[in-house]
C-alpha cells in the first residue's frame, strides 16, 4: 500500500531524512517512532506530497507521490502535527468545507459530516467556533477532517500529543477502530502509543531507520532478553543460587540480594524455568515468596536502538 524507496530530504546542507526505505501492506498499522527531530514529520510530509523529496521514490496504492500527486491526495487522510483549522469557522462549516475539497459527493456531505462528528465524539458541537476549542477538541476535529472522505490510507502525525490521559485513551480507541480496514501510519515519540496501537514499529533517528520490526522483535533486540526474578526462602547455609543454577535449562543466575532469610535471584533462561524452580524448592523444603517474568519493554528497546546510534 505504501512503498518508500531510498527517500531522502535535504534542507541545504542538513539531511533531515537520509535514504530510508520501507513497505507497508494493506491493513497494517505502523508506528513511526523516534526522538524529536528524527525526521518523522519530514517523512510524513513527503508521503503526503506536501514537500518534495531530494531523492528516492515513494508511492501510495501504486501511485507515485511525486508524479501523480492528485491520485495520492485522493487516497490519503492526513492529520498534520498541528490540526489544520480555520479559527474563524465553526466545526460544522469547517468539516463541510473539507468534505467539499475532499471530493465527497454533494449528496453525502451532510451525512458524512454528522457521521465523523459522532465518531470523534463531537455530536452537537456543530456551531462551536474552532478558535475557541481546547487542544483536545482541536485534535478531534483534526481527526474528523482526516477521515471525512473515508481514505484507504491514514497518516497521523502525533495524534495524541498534548492531550490529557482520558483523551489519549479515547483517541487511541478511535484509531484502533479505524485501523480495522485501513492502512495507518502514525508517528509519535510516545512508546506506549505504538504499543497500544501498532503491530509494527519503524524506529527512525537522525534521519535513518535504525529498526523496522514487530514490537516483540524490537523487544528481543535488547541485549539482555527475558529475565526472571525469583525470591526464595531457604534454610540457613544453603547456597540457593548454586542449586538453581544447576537446574537444566538455566543459563545464568545472579544473586541480587538477601534479606530476612529471603534470597532474591536474577535468573536467565531461554524457556520459562519457573516450574522447575518451584519443583526444586518444594523438593528441598524451601518457600517460594515470588517469581516473576521481566520482559524488556519498548522503552528499553528504543533507548537501546537510539542510544546505539549516537
Amino acid at each position, binding site marked *: 500500500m505504501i512503498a518508500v524507496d531510498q527517500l531522502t530530504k535535504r534542507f541545504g546542507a542538513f539531511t533531515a531524512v537520509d535514504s530510508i526505505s520501507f513497505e507497508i501492506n494493506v491493513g497494517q498499522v505502523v508506528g513511526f517512532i523516534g526522538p524529536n527531530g528524527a525526521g518523522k514529520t519530514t517523512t510524513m510530509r513527503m508521503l503526503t506530497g506536501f514537500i518534495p523529496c531530494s531523492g528516492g521514490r515513494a508511492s501510495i496504492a501504486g501511485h507515485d507521490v511525486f508524479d501523480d500527486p492528485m491520485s495520492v*491526495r*485522493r487516497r490519503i487522510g*492526513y492529520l498534520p502535527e498541528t490540526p*489544520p*483549522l*480555520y479559527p*474563524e469557522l465553526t466545526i460544522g462549516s469547517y468539516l463541510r*468545507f473539507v468534505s*467539499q*475539497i475532499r471530493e465527497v459527493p454533494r449528496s453525502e456531505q451532510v451525512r458524512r459530516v454528522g457521521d465523523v462528528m459522532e465518531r470523534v465524539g463531537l455530536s452537537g458541537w456543530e456551531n462551536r467556533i474552532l478558535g475557541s476549542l481546547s487542544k483536545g477538541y482541536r485534535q478531534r476535529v483534526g481527526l474528523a477532517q482526516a477521515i471525512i472522505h473515508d481514505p484507504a490510507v491514514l497518516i497521523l502525525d502525533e495524534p495524541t500529543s498534548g492531550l490529557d490521559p482520558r483523551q489519549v485513551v479515547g483517541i487511541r480507541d478511535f484509531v484502533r477502530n479505524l485501523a480495522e480496514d485501513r492502512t495507518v501510519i502514525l508517528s509519535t515519540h510516545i512508546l506506549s502509543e505504538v504499543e497500544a496501537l501498532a503491530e509494527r514499529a519503524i524506529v527512525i533517528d537522525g534521519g535513518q531507520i535504525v529498526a523496522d520490526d514487530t514490537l516483540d522483535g524490537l523487544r528481543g533486540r535488547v541485549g539482555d532478553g527475558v529475565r526472571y526474578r525469583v525470591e526464595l526462602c531457604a534454610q540457613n547455609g544453603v547456597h540457593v543460587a548454586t542449586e538453581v543454577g544447576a537446574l537444566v535449562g538455566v543459563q545464568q543466575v545472579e544473586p541480587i540480594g538477601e534479606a530476612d532469610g529471603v534470597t532474591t535471584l536474577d535468573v536467565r533462561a531461554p524457556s520459562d524455568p519457573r516450574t522447575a524452580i518451584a519443583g526444586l524448592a518444594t523438593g528441598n523444603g524451601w518457600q517460594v515468596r515470588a517469581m516473576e517474568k521481566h520482559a524488556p519493554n519498548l522503552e528499553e528497546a528504543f533507548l537501546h536502538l537510539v542510544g546505539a546510534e549516537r
Partner: protein
Amino acid sequence: MNAAFAIFKKELHIYFVSPLATVFLAAFLFLAGLFFYLGVAMSGEASLRVMMGNLSIALMFLLPMLTMRHFAEEERNGTLELMMTAPVPLWALLVGKWSASVALCGLLLVGTLLFPAILAYYGEPDWGVIATSYLGLGLCCMAFVSAGLFASSLTDEPVAAGFLGVLVLLPFWLAGTVSEMVESDWLRVVLRELAILTHIDGFSKGIVDSADVVWFLLISVGFLFLTWRSVESRRWR
C-alpha cells in the same frame, strides 16, 4: 471547479464572520463619501471623476489589507498543509481566493452606487461615464487583489504581507509622477505606461480603450502567475 467554488465560499464566509469585511466596508464607504463630497462641492459638476480617481488610489492602500491574510494566514494556521494535501489543484486555490476578494470589492462598489443615485436626484449625470468609471474601478480591484495575493504568498506574517502589498503596488502609482521628471523619452513612455492613472483616466472620462482593459487584465494574470510560482516554490524551501 467545485473546489474553487468551495474555497470561494469559505473565504467570503471568513470575511464576514471576522470583523474584517465590516470594518473594511465602513472605511471604504466613508472615504468614498468624503471623496464624493469634495469632488462635487469643488467642481460643482454632477460627476464622479474626483471620487473615482481618489478611490483608485485609496484602494491601492486598502486592498492589500483585505488580501494580506490569504496565504500568510494559511501558512500560520497550518491550513496550507490541508490545502496542499487535499486533491485541490493550485489554480483552484488561487482562483477561489482571488474571486472571493474580487467579489467583496464588487460589494464595495455596489455600496457606492448611492452616490450616482444622489447625483441623479439633484442633477443629470452622464450614465455612460458612470458606467465606464465603475468598469475601470472594477478592473483596478482585480489587479490590486492579484498583487495583494502575491504579497501574501511571500510571507507568513499577515501584517507584513499587507505592507508588502502596498509596496508592490506603489511603483504603479509613482511611475506616473516619476515619468514627468525623467529626461529620456523612451523611459518616460515606459513609466507612463506602467502608471495606473494613465490607464484609469480613460474610464473616468467615459472612454473604454481595449488597451487599458488588456493592461489591467495583464497585471491581474501576471500577479496570479507570480503567486502561483511563489506558492509552488515555498514548498521547496
